[in-house]
């Protein structure tokens, strides 16, 4: 699952960069995908934390 979290973070970050780097330079798309990349890193952080996570019902 750690690989999945890292993979998602990289993919989202690259998609965000693509949107800002290519015309018409979508700022909203860029910000959204960078936030999704950050959330993927939070998921990674949770996997590394103490195993006291309540069930994700």
């Amino acid at each position, binding site marked *: 699952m750690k690989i999945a979290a890292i993979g998602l973070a990289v993919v989202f970050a690259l998609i965000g960069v693509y949107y800002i780097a290519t015309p018409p330079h979508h*700022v*909203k*798309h860029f*910000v*959204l995908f960078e*936030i*999704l990349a950050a*959330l993927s890193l*939070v998921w990674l*952080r*949770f996997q*590394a*934390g*103490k*195993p*006291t*996570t*309540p069930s*994700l*019902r």
Partner: protein
Amino acid sequence: MTWLQAMILAVLQGVSELFPISSLGHTVLVPSLLRWKIDRSDPTFLSFVVALHLGTAIALIIFYRTDWVRIVRALVASIARGNLSSDPDERVGWLLVVGTVPVALLGVFLEKPVRAFFGSSALVSIFLIVNAFIMFGGEALRRRSTGERALPTIAWLDGAKVGIAQGAALFPGISRSGSSIVAGLLLGLTHEDAARYSFLLATPVIFAASALEVPQLFAPGSQAILAQAAVGGVLAGICAYASVAFLVRYFHGNDLRPFGWYCLIFGAVCLALTLTKVIA
């Protein structure tokens, strides 16, 4: 746009953004009813709308400031620890994250095509009537169910469902707060908790969407309405603050049906006026 028109639009936006009556629907229909010649695609008008939304978002942040401080602290603590606890503020914070992601995705990818396609007065009137039936239906289903749940006890998937329901507001005439409050009610939340989740959920979406458009306020040609935008933004914020204060007290013991009746009557009148070509 005259100052009077700008101030009426500011009040309309501030009030209707949080009341479950569709702000977008009203900003399409009211100028048509008053026969205002406003080009909604004009960049200066769009700058003005950005300022109104920013004012509304800031009012929401100020109203729920103590909640936001607790929620952000709990989220930061959760990330620092690297796990989830049973803290209600932390739970609400992650529910807000889970609920915001789908509506952000829907908004970013579908907002422009949906609004361009469904922007006519007739369609907006029809969606306003649909909005009324969403609220009537939600209330009817809520009365049939028995149990009540507190906001921090709802499941992650249910939090995302409320976010997706909020996406229905992309259709002009469907209310963001109405659809998300109904979704909350269907999950078993009380009116009070459903409204609180709806308003908290709306804050990051409205704030981020308007903050990212702030540079548009300073674009060439926008200076002419900068004063109107600034005063309009403050006025919209004051109206939004008063609205959320009223609604929080209102939902303590009341339901969505009066707003449903309002949307039904206003939507039907506007539809009749549109079909008879009285309004464009």
